[in-house]
Structure formats: structure tokens, C-alpha cells
């Protein structure tokens, strides 16, 4: 296993929005190094021809609901949990148009 670099951790942190201070990042790097070193053992297993598990209960398929409108979440209940709201919407700081 290649050592995870500071850059890689910074990149992962950006992807999953986990911000770390410099020293925490170092601790994290060490922890991850150890954990990755451990899970590395999986690589020694020969899994040629083995399908990745899709679902533990293989017989459970086609679970669907009929197309009916049912119980909804009331706007009040929804907004009561929200940190900030405006005109029935969730309020957030301005968003730059850079959507994925």
C-alpha cells in the first residue's frame, strides 16, 4: 500500500467535505495508514471469477410501490428542523452557479 500523501488526504477531505486542521490531518494520515495497511490483506485473496455481492438476500428483487400519492411531510415539520428558512424555502448563503 502506497503511503497516503497529504495531498491525497486533502483531496479526499474536499470530496467528502471533512475539513481538517494541519495537525489533525497528520493524525488522520497516521490512522488511515494503519487501517489501510490492515485492509490491504484483502488483496492477497484470489477472487477471480467471483461476482461482487450486490445484495445479501439474492432472492429479493423488484420491490416496488404502486404509483399513488400518499402521506407527505408537512412543510412546517420540515422547516421546523431547518437551521434557516425564507419564504417556505431552506435558506442558504448565495450559491455560485457551478453545479455539477
Amino acid at each position, binding site marked *: 500500500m502506497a503511503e497516503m500523501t497529504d495531498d491525497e488526504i486533502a483531496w479526499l477531505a474536499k470530496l467528502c467535505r471533512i475539513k481538517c486542521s494541519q495537525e489533525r490531518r497528520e493524525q488522520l494520515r497516521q490512522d488511515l495508514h494503519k487501517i489501510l495497511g490492515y485492509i490491504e490483506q484483502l488483496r492477497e485473496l484470489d477472487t477471480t471469477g467471483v461476482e461482487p455481492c450486490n*445484495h445479501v438476500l439474492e432472492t429479493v428483487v*423488484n420491490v*416496488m410501490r404502486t404509483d399513488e400519492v400518499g402521506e*407527505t411531510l408537512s412543510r412546517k415539520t420540515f422547516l421546523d428542523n431547518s437551521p434557516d428558512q425564507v419564504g417556505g424555502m431552506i435558506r442558504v448563503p*448565495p450559491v455560485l452557479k457551478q*453545479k455539477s
Partner: protein
Amino acid sequence: MSNYGEWKAVIGLEIHAELNTKSKLFSAAPNHFGDEPNENIHAVCTGQPGALPVLNKEAVHKAVQLGCALDAKVQTFSKFDRKSYFYPDSPRNFQITQLDQPIIRGGTVTTEVEGQERVFSIDRVHLEDDAGMLKHFSHFAGVDYNRAGVPLVEIVSDPCIHTPKEAAAYAMAVRAILQYIDASDCNMEEGSLRFDANISVMHKNDPGFRNKIEIKNMNSFSNMEAALTAEIQRQIQEYSQHPDKDPAEVIQQATYRWDPELRKTVIMRRKEQVDDYRYFPEPDLVPIVLKESYIEEVRRQLPELPLQRERRYVRELGLAADMAFQLTSDKMAADYFEEALTTCSNPRSLTNWILIEFAGRFKESGKQLWNSGIAASQVGELVNLIDNKTITGKIAKQVADQMLTSPGKSPLEIVKSNPDYQPVNDRDTIEPIIDQILANHQQSVSDFRTGKQKAFAFLVGQVMKETRGKASPQLVNELLIEKIGV
């Protein structure tokens, strides 16, 4: 094929269509546009912790119908995946979509481009849930999740499109199919049909593709055509200005959007390493396993599709191919036509009135005949009035004008309520006029006697002019012939 000299454009379209189910893809919240913000929400589509998705059967059914309509391979096994990215309109910060095992693979769309039949090939169609909507204000943004979780099909074409016209024609054909199978409302103003394009240009000496640019959110067929035209020009120009540079440097992969005001494509962002969506199978949903017999049944029960209808109009109604195509490429138009046809038996004239006369009158307003309040039967009635010589074609045009200004009023009523529109049918009124005209145009009379048909038409025209188009053409004919005595 294209008019770019040594260059050729390569375009692939991604069409997102919202399915018109009653409820959302994974929850029982209503799938409905235009309500107050956060009115049509559920624990699932607002990403509440502990909420779990359950797939809407009807969405699957509509996707299968679409697959059959595209003559595609409906997959007997498909599954959902999570696509991760952070954005406020994404309630879980992952979208549920289908990556490597979509419900539909392949398929074709046959349509006309500038009178030529073209077959476009489809790579795949998959199901996914829509995001919510952001309303941008100067100092903040508001998030509304009414749209979050609305079922979408994403129809991905092969990079088989080479001109903006082809792109628009293909997109219109896809829209028609979606309408015919009643899978989507295809309302572009409400965003229920959206297009993204991947576009690159290729020099005739190129061994392979160059970098492609993604253009997002072109929200009408005309915008799409304009955006693609502008982007092709831009790319060719960039490459031509930097002939010595590595092409991969000249145009780098990026996402653009069409700015209709500036009339050019504007960069949104470059493709960076950060675009790592970390797709993996959605553990909260189980696979969709379809039986061949079910797929066959759906295929058998497909409604008539645009191409079939077009061919039927040509074969059975004797319409010209281009008219039949135009009529059938919008289901609303075709349905309207068929409704009118129940009251009228002149399909060619009816087509002309729908596609040319009325369409021309609605051009400015942006409205369409079928949602204008003018009933289809009334257009049929108008055609009948002409056909049974109640009015002349000229008056019919004035009646049509009035049908627009007072929708709902029948053509017959309009004709009856205006003395100017009353056909002049009695011999006693017309005879003196004819006598007068014959007296004034002796030359024409003798020309006609020597076999000049044009002279007869001229005389008819004179009578019509004198009667302000009200004289019954049949009667005028009869009287003229009688009086000239041939």
C-alpha cells in the same frame, strides 16, 4: 453532411425527461409542478435521516415503454447506483441513478432532417431522481424540494449527430415519442424536458476524437440549435487560430452553458479531478428483474408512435410526407388534427389550415392552436364551410382571424353574424354585376372565346372583387359561362 469545410462536428445529446407519474420516483409525494415551495415533499425526497427509497412501479413501466418505443434492448436485470456530490438542491448529497446496468440499452430514433430521413442511435436510457430547485437572490439562495425525487429518464444518444439541425430534429423526435407513449409532459418551460450536449469538432485528418465540451440547460429547440452553432464555430475558430498547439491544450474539457442574451456559450467550470462521483450500487434498493414476457406485453400494447402515424397519414389520408411529418412530430398537433377530422373529411385542407394558416396566426403569441380555446371541431367546420361553398377561401381567412380574437365562437356563428361574410347566392344580385363586368371587358370575353382560360379567371376575379369575395364561386362560374355562351 455539414458545412464546416475540413471540419466535422460530433455531437451527443443527453435528454432528461421528467416522467408524468402521480408520485415521485422513490416516495409517495406528489409529482406536481408549480405549487408553493416545499409543498410536495416527503421524508425520502428531502433526505431525512432514516428515510428509505421505494421504487415507483409506474416509472419503471414508462421506462420500459420508452425502451420498446425506441426499439431498444430493455434489460432483464438493472440496478441503481449512488452518485455523490454536494449541492444544496441534492437532498442526500447523492443522486440515485443507474450507472453500469441501466434499464435500457441501445435503440434508435428515425426522423426527418431537412426532408431527409435519418436514423439516430441511442446508447442507453436510465432512470434517476431529479434534484430540487434553487432560487437565487442577491444575498442568499432558497431551496425548494418540490422537484426533488421526480422521476427522470436520461436518454443518452451516441455521438452520431453532426449538425445543430440534426440535434434539434433528433430532440424533437424524442419529445414526440415521449408524448405519444404518455411518459412525459415534455413541457420545456416547466423544465420537464431538458437537454445537455457533448460536442467536439474533428478535422478530416484526425485519427480520433478531440476534447469535448458539455453544454448544459439549453431550454428550447431553437436555443439548442443556436448554442450548438455557436459552439461549433468557437471550437473551429480556436483550433484554426492555434494550428501549432496541441489540440488538447486549445480546447480543454469543460462545462459551458448557453447565454441567450450574449448569444454565446459561457464557461461554467473546467473538468477537474474533483469530479469523482464515487458511484456504487445503492444498497437501499434491490435490482429490477424483468421477464421477457412482460417486456413483450408492453411492446404489444404500445400506442401508435409518431413515425407510424406519419406513415399512416401518407398512406391512408394522402397527406404529403413533409406535412404528415410536421403534423405528427407534435402529438398535440396530431391529436388535434384527428379530432378535427371527425367533423370534416378533407384531411389535406385541414392539415393546411392547422399547419400553415393557424400556425402562422399564432406565431407571434407563442401560443398553439390546440391550447388556444379554438376547438378542433371548429377548424373542421371552417374547412367544411369552404368545401360546401358556404364561404370562399378568402372569407375563410377573415373568419379564422376572428376565431383567434373570440375563441370559442364557431365559424358558422361568425359567418352568420357578419353580413359581409354572407355568401351572395341569389342570381338577381349577381346578374347585373356580371353584365356590367362583361360590358367593361369585351377583350377578355373574346379572348376566352378563343380558348384563353386565363381570361376566364380574370373575369371571375373581377366579379369577386366587385362582390368583395362574397359571391358564390359556383354561381359566378355558371352565370359567366351562360352569358358568354360557350
